[in-house]
């Protein structure tokens, strides 16, 4: 039975399956590194999915579609930014509300788009590279977003580790009072981080509606935003571990689909449950190593900043 599954195809498809999670998670990682906990990732993703879909259908250009998704989700994240950074609302509650709002709004915008076919995004033509046996199928036969997602991990890692911008961002997430005392603009930096997180979640959402599925239905992101949030914790706020976590989750998702297709004796419901169950298990194991994971969390995560203190 397992012999029916081609490992090369499996790896190639897990890379595709992980893209939305990678993008949303790396965006959220930056947001959390700046000390903001935005639980509205799911809402921003689905806004990205519908805005990207509508833009792509309207313009016939999938690239503009991704841009539209990024802009739509970033606009939604700005609502979160305004409420939490200027009105000092509770970040957890506002984030949850953002998800509900995003789901409702996307469903409204999506009226009349059910069953519509979006313009197709092709694979990046890498010529002879794609013809290399096994490796070509795994590495060189993908659409551009797959490469973009890996590149974004590398970029975030490098920026956080080597640049002054990254250092300031981490400093703001570590202690906003100290950063303020040194003269850094805490609110402005956090708003920018929130918008970056929104845009990345939006691109991830657009990937679901434009490439992975590709069509529009309500609730199309199906909890990917929540998984992205979990993966940031799983990665203990380290960019490359986001990639690992997302591929792990994507791998299990693809594997269970393949197992279902191959007619495994396990009921399909249990298989569909597996990726989520394993994510919970991994999170529990990670956090039980006393303090290890929690020590790497940005110290000011989830705390609102008010300059008069």
């Amino acid at each position, binding site marked *: 039975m397992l012999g029916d599954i081609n490992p090369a195809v499996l790896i190639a498809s897990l890379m595709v399956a992980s893209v939305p999670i990678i993008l949303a998670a790396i965006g959220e990682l930056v947001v959390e590194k700046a000390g903001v906990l935005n639980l509205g990732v799911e809402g921003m993703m689905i806004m990205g999915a519908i805005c990207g879909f509508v833009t792509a259908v309207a313009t016939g250009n999938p690239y503009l579609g991704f841009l539209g998704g990024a802009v739509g989700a970033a606009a939604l994240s700005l609502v979160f930014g305004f409420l939490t950074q200027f009105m000092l609302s509770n970040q957890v509650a506002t984030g949850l509300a953002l998800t509900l709002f995003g789901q409702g709004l996307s469903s409204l915008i999506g009226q009349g788009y059910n069953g519509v076919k979006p313009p197709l995004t092709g694979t990046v033509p890498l010529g002879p590279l794609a013809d290399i046996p096994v490796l070509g199928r795994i590495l060189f036969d993908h659409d551009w977003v797959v490469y973009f997602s890996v590149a974004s991990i590398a970029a975030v890692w490098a920026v956080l580790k080597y640049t*002054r911008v990254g*250092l*300031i961002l*981490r*400093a703001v997430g*570590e*202690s906003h*009072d*100290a*950063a303020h*005392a*040194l*003269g*850094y603009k805490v609110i402005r930096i956090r708003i920018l981080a929130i918008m970056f997180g929104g845009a990345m979640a939006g691109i991830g959402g657009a990937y679901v509606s434009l490439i992975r599925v590709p069509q529009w239905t309500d609730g199309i992101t199906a909890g990917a935003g929540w998984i992205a949030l979990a993966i940031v914790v799983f990665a203990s706020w380290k960019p490359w571990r986001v990639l690992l976590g997302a591929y792990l989750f994507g791998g299990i998702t693809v594997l269970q689909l393949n197992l279902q297709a191959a007619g495994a004796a396990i009921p399909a419901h249990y298989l569909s449950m597996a990726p989520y169950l394993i994510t919970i298990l991994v999170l529990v194991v990670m956090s039980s190593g006393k*303090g290890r994971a*929690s*020590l*790497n969390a*940005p*110290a000011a995560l989830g705390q609102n900043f008010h300059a008069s203190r």
Partner: protein
Amino acid sequence: MTGQTTRPELLAVSGVTKAYPGVVANSDVSFSIKEGEVHALLGENGAGKSTLVKMIYGLVKPDSGSMRLSGAAYAPNEPRQARSSGVAMVFQHFSLFEALSVAENVALGMENPPKLRDLAGRIRKVSEEYGLPLDPDRMVGDLSAGERQRVEIIRCLLQDPKLLIMDEPTSVLTPQEVEILFKTLRQLSAEGTAILYISHKLEEIRALCDEATILRRGKVVATCTPRDRSAREMAELMVGATLTPPERGAKAKGETALQVSGLSVASPIPFGTSLKNIGFSVAKGEVLGIAGVAGNGQDELLLALSGELRTAAGTLSIDGKDVSALGPNDRRRAGLVAAPEERLGHAAAPDMSLVENALLSGATRQGLVKNGFIDWPATRSFAEGIVKDFDVRTPGTHVAARALSGGNLQKFVVGRELSQAPTVIVINQPTWGVDAAAAAAIRQAILDRAAQGAAVVVISQDLDELLEIADNFAALNEGRLTPPRPVAGLTIDEIGLMMGGAHGMEVAHHAH
């Protein structure tokens, strides 16, 4: 530091006023500092020292008045501008990032930092030049308070400041570390760097400063040369009243009330200090003072004593009964009350009223809950009693805890614990951030409870306070407690050594 009269003026502040809603923080403040001068800014909490230096550092904008730096008009809009004009500041709190390395912390305080690798080299060089050795690759969270301060000072020195502002720099240092700091400051002053030194420790100011400006309620009330004045004279200028030291009643030593032995527990706080084999006993009527530089296990010791942190069986007993396994409420029932350092969020729930806050810790011993129902009238009169007995200035007991000023809330939370007729009292930093009059009242109340037969453990970083009220003295150093010794006859050198000396820093200065 002679011949300073011939030195040119560096900073002149004239007629600066800054008002916040409901309070005038600075009113028409004028003073000036010459190049290379060590200038003290003296005043009680709330006298407006912090607001004044924040204006000089560009964090706050004055409502009116002007400043001149080296003869040119000076009005910084943000710290960046202040730094590029040659003004640097060492903060009392809030300016280091624990999870970042020393070099990263230094880089964050600079305008155009070099590459981290070059910066690390410069940190090593400058820190050795000034006798403040520092490893640029270490996490700040792992450093002692004294070392953290070195990070801040080095951060300033790398920018060749003309004026260095120091906000209460010695509050976290051992006496030996203070000596080293003073040597560094004198060296800087001799090189022509002016230092604005904020403190309320008068002996230090007499030892270090050339000139002093004394603030009271936002106004300059006097300027003087500290060497020519006694500490008492300056204190009275600061407070605007004569001070009376607390009286202690005569007392006979009773039997042991609190016995701690072999207490070891891991810290629940990130970057905290674990307690290692702590043992001491406190008799009825005795005040045990526990000193130590911040972050040497004070918070953990309070948690272990209050019951928020459970410890191994047999490590803790009250009146001979083992209470190691009991939680805070059961320990209260057994007679132990505790007041932690953090007033808002630990000792008091910020958004709850004083009545509700009185209930939170007083319910058990005062019998404020009957059959699961809260006896509000009794709770209200308990809270009103605290407000009256401890002179808490508040519009009423219905106001939220966060609405009280720091000193008033401190009086309330300490008063709440002392009002419960306890047999054992544990207090961490009883007068932290409290003005002199309120501090004296709190110390007097503690002594009164001891005179009535309570065993008292006072954990504090204020040595003068401990020497004033404690019968026995011990020090926490990296989670270990020295054996308690009677306060009478202790010298300041012995105390410094008990607190851990200067963490191996002496060598660095001998080279000079």
